[in-house]
């Protein structure tokens, strides 16, 4: 057998792909040999620490073969059965979107229809009447990922851009720049070189709303797991604070606190009270580096406007954590060298996605400041970033404008969008359904604090509304809130034409008029670096979440399956039909674009194009005595900032706030939003608009928390990989449908007559989701835990706001923003009730028959979804492809 080995990256990390006779045989981690550089060695506390000589992708990366041959692949271009191409865009049975099935179309038919509709809509209503948005992370690579090919096409076309909200770190983006700056890191901290600092100095780790082995530093796979084992073995104490005793916690925690969801800011205030009354904070540091600290301290101690001391007893009443334990936590933190942070890279976590998210994020920063942030062993560092790296080697990340084919220098000509009108993702359905929407901010506000306060109106004066929606990816039904709002939007006749371009038949795909099948990363060329999200207003140097800096030539392992095509091919075909194909491609094919990224980065100085594409990857080694720029050390030591991602004013030793100090009373909020009651100049704990003090709590007594998923990434792996449906902590496969696990405390389960493994209904006024009960002490009595975004959106009555059996718990979450001036989303401020489900158990998944029908149209012998999931369908598919390849060779 002729075995070929190529390489690629997906959101779970870099992989080696073995291919035999034109089909993928296996997917492995990339294992280094003697030709690859030596890894770094950190010497600390009498020991030496060095990483394994391989990449450590997450298990989701090891499913890439299955995602390619998945039962839910979109195999052919498809057109909605009852779609009518009326010349005026009216009477198109839009109400049936989600409900109707599809018919197989040819590429020419589908592409010509899309091009005709784009032209018709733009000719009728203007350029701005087309809108489009991408999902995140269903693929990886500087060419194919969303900010490159997609952006090039739509900027050249002209369209109403939909601004992304900072969906994973809301409270940090909207809160922390007002406390310590770092708007250019979206409110996240600078954790450079803190792994070494931690190994040498730290005694206590505070993991606040943080499950590092689940969120894996974003896209860093399991690279940092070993680091936390090292710390554990050194005797470092791990304290986890999370309403769910999460997967890292149950293995590693020395202590777990489960505050009532949404009350973490109260816990911050309780800790501060203990420190203030017992003198357990760095007074010298605060005197020097804090702004209006005393006013805040007065507030905590009961001398503020509310005359309420934030005592441990008060804190106990809000959080449910005993006062004595709160004091113990405060003392441990205040008397030992402590590092910590919230979620993913330290400035994320489920808490920041609550009604009180900004205030928690700001208070958490204030607490770390009170302990002398930046001194050895004292910092915001969450154990997931800050590995040594060669800062002098540059290869772009996906958000770098310099690393996108939309821009120079990669392209000869930069693509510029001629439309200024915008929409805002969390409220896209509101804007479409109401025809009007106003909001503050630029979504990701990496360009400056002022960007949080820009005012937007849709439709923009003088502009038309949007009537064509081009959706690239399809995971918002699962990852965005109040799913049924999106259902209503898709059924609206305001959207005269809906295109979906995706790899798998996701929730949103099933609402499109035309579906264009894209291929996976393994079926096309691309180039990319492990966990590098770039520096385009994102958090730069995210690749320090990895033990190794790895750039991969994402070789085409196999030909596109069925009639799927690369995103680049699809967009260039439409561009050609619109008459600007040549301008779009600049005469380059995908491989030629890949080479541009090599040529325009430092990679071309390190390895030749031929060697790089032959070997498949390049490891940027770390020099023996690497440059060290520990985060915040410059600030403590009163010298110009030397970290690799700083702003000019930091060279005067200042932070990015108005005063250059930690602002305990925010001058920027006093300037821009003094009247805002959600995010106040002094960060304070406030009752949630959907929390235990709400009237609604009487009817819906449980907090639902739906953090970032452990067994998925934005719904993209759970749906395509039935292997995961039998992981007991993830799903239970019953009657052909994988039900998501929801966790409930044994006492409450007993009250409700629920036993472990029972089907239970999670419900509130927004909808209902059928899950399987996991009865566990890992949640407190007030909490139900079910992972967000792990939804296979699967309503019992497709196209309607009916019960969901796919585990799309965002059916239940509030669609409103955190506040009028705080345009973030807050899924973890959700109240629900639960009951045992005694209704009929559905058979199978409701969308499979639609796929089966089109598959059979393309090939009478095609395997059905169920045959691929449960039977020998996978084996047959691969055999058929192999035989075809063999026949082709014979001919």
């Amino acid at each position, binding site marked *: 057998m002729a075995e070929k080995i190529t390489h690629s990256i997906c959101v779970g990390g870099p992989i080696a792909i073995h291919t035999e006779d034109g089909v993928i045989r296996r997917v492995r*981690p990339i294992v280094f*040999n003697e030709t690859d550089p030596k890894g770094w060695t950190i010497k600390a506390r009498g020991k030496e620490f060095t990483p394994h000589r391989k990449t450590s992708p997450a298990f989701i990366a090891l499913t890439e073969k299955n995602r390619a041959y998945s039962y839910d692949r979109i195999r052919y271009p498809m057109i909605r059965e009852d779609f009518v191409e009326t010349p005026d865009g009216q009477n198109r049975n839009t109400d049936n979107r989600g409900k109707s099935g599809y018919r197989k179309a040819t590429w020419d038919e589908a592409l010509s229809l899309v091009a005709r509709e784009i032209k018709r809509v733009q000719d009728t209503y203007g350029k701005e009447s087309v809108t489009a948005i991408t999902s995140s992370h269903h693929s990886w690579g500087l060419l194919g990922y969303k900010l490159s090919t997609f952006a090039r096409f739509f900027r050249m076309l002209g369209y109403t851009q939909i601004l992304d909200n900072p969906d994973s770190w809301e409270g940090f983006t909207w809160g922390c720049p007002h406390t310590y700056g770092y708007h250019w890191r979206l409110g996240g901290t600078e954790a450079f070189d803190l792994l070494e600092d931690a190994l040498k100095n730290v005694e206590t780790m505070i993991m606040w709303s943080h499950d590092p082995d689940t969120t894996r530093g974003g896209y860093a796979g399991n690279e940092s797991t070993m680091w936390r084992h090292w710390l554990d073995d050194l005797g470092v104490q791990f304290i986890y604070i999370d309403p769910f005793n999460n997967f890292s916690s149950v293995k590693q925690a020395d202590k777990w606190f489960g505050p009532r969801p949404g009350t973490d800011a109260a816990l911050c205030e309780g800790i501060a009270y203990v420190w203030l009354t017992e003198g357990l904070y760095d007074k010298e540091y605060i005197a020097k580096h804090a702004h209006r600290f005393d006013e805040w301290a007065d507030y905590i101690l009961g001398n503020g406007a509310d005359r309420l001391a934030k005592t441990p007893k008060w804190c106990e009443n809000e959080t449910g954590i005993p006062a004595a334990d709160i004091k113990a936590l405060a003392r*441990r933190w205040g008397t030992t060298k402590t590092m910590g942070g919230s979620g993913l890279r330290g400035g994320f976590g489920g808490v920041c996605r609550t009604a009180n998210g900004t205030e928690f994020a700001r208070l958490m920063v204030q607490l770390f400041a009170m302990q002398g942030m930046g001194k050895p062993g004292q910092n915001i560092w969450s154990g997931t970033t800050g590995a040594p790296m060669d800062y002098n080697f540059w290869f772009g990340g996906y958000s770098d404008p310099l690393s996108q084919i939309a821009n120079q220098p990669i392209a000869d000509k930069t693509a510029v969008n001629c439309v200024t009108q915008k929409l805002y993702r969390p409220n896209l359905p509101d804007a479409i359904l109401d025809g009007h929407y106003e909001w503050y901010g630029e979504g990701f506000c990496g360009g400056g604090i002022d960007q949080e306060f820009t005012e937007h109106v849709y439709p923009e004066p003088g502009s038309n509304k949007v009537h064509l929606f081009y959706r690239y990816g399809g995971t918002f039904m699962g990852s965005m809130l109040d799913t049924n709002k999106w259902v209503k939007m898709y059924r609206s006749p305001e959207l005269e034409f809906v295109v979906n371009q995706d790899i798998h038949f996701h929730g949103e795909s099933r609402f499109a008029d035309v579906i264009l099948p894209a291929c996976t990363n393994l079926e096309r060329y691309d180039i990319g670096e492990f966990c590098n999200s770039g520096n385009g207003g994102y958090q730069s140097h995210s690749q320090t979440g990895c033990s190794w800096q790895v750039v991969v030539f994402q070789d085409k392992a196999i030909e596109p399956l069925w009639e799927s095509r690369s995103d680049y091919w699809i967009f260039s075909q439409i561009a050609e039909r619109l008459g600007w194909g040549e301008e779009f491609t600049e005469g380059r094919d995908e491989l030629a674009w890949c080479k541009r990224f090599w040529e325009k980065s430092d990679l071309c100085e390190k390895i030749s194009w031929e060697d790089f594409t032959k070997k498949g990857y390049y490891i940027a080694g770390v020099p023996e005595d690497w440059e060290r720029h520990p985060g915040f050390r410059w600030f403590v030591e009163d010298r110009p900032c030397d970290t690799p991602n700083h702003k000019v004013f930091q060279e005067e030793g200042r932070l990015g706030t108005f005063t250059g100090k930690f602002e305990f009373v925010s001058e920027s909020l006093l300037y821009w939003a003094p009247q805002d009651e959600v995010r106040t100049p002094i960060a304070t704990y406030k009752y949630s608009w959907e929390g235990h003090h709400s009237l609604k709590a009487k009817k819906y007594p449980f907090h639902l928390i739906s953090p970032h998923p452990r*067994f998925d990434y934005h719904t993209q792996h759970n749906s395509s990989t039935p292997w995961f449906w039998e*992981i007991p902590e993830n799903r239970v496969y019953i009657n052909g449908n994988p039900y998501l696990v929801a966790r409930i405390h044994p006492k409450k389960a007993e009250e409700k007559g629920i036993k472990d493994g029972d089907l239970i209904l999670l419900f509130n006024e927004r909808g209902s989701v059928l899950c399987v009960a996991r009865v566990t002490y890992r949640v407190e009595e007030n909490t139900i835990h079910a992972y967000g975004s792990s939804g296979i959106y699967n309503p019992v009555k497709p196209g309607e706001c009916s019960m969901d059996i796919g585990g799309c718990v965002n059916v239940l979450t509030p669609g409103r923003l955190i506040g009028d001036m705080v345009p973030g989303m807050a899924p973890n401020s959700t109240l629900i009730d639960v009951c045992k489900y005694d209704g009929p158990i559905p058979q199978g998944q409701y969308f499979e028959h639609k796929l089966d029908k089109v598959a059979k149209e393309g090939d009478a012998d095609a395997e059905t979804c169920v045959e691929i*999931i449960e039977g020998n369908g996978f*084996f047959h598919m691969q055999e058929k492809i192999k035989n075809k390849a063999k026949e082709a060779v014979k001919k």
Partner: protein
Amino acid sequence: MRLGIAIDSKACMACYCCYTACKDEHCGYDTKLSASQPMMGQFWMDIREWERGDDSRHIKVATVPTPCSHCADPACMKAAKDGAVYKRDDGIVIIDPVKAKGQKAIADACPLGAIYWNEEKQLPQKCNMCAELLDDPNYLSYLGAEYKKPRCVEACPNGALVFGDLDNPESEVSKIIAKNRVTQLPELEGKETNVVHLNVPTVFLSGTVYYPEEMEEVCVGAKIKITCRKSGEVFEAITNDFGDWEVEWLPKKENVEIEIVKEGYAPIKLTALTDTDHYLGMTYLTKA
């Protein structure tokens, strides 16, 4: 040579890389050494997890990746007819996918439940330590023969799975075993196996000690003494900064007496049965 895998339950974070790599290798592909693992229903690398504790105040989870143990004297081999199960010279236990057809007794014989019965193919199936890859001279030839490992081991990011020659005391696997607590799974007690489990927990007892309730203070430094009634064996602990105490690795199913001592306060006596992990509650001291 005796090939084996050491599995460290402490290092395992249940990340499911081993599980996924195993499925990736064996689902959908027949080899001479095994029929393909069905897409659903079999777990040649089964991650067994159980929640430890009976109170939200102190909960842990044990994670134990559990493949076939490749016993020295396999029960499945004894149950097999026509040599349908055989042990190779390197110690790997193989179920012959042709000869084993119809022999459900092979699956039933496994004390660990690591052999699965394939109803459709009428075949017992299990982990074969990726023997077909270890045998294949071409597999990973681009790296070198020394890089060949079972897929689960290669995919483990934490060094929780280590592969090698158990007969060679210098091998990585032998060294890991020597350094750690060997914890044979209860189902395999007394058996010699080529898969060696390390640090699989037994039972803990734990609790929290507070000063008198009105003080709202945890008690740091209280002494805990656990005495097994039958054996007289003694375990000791001291409450930490959170007033918590915990004793791991207790013998199972023992009646024990617990004494909590803090100078100036009346000693407190509790009893417990180590049938399973227990949190003995929030204990409040009273003045002596």
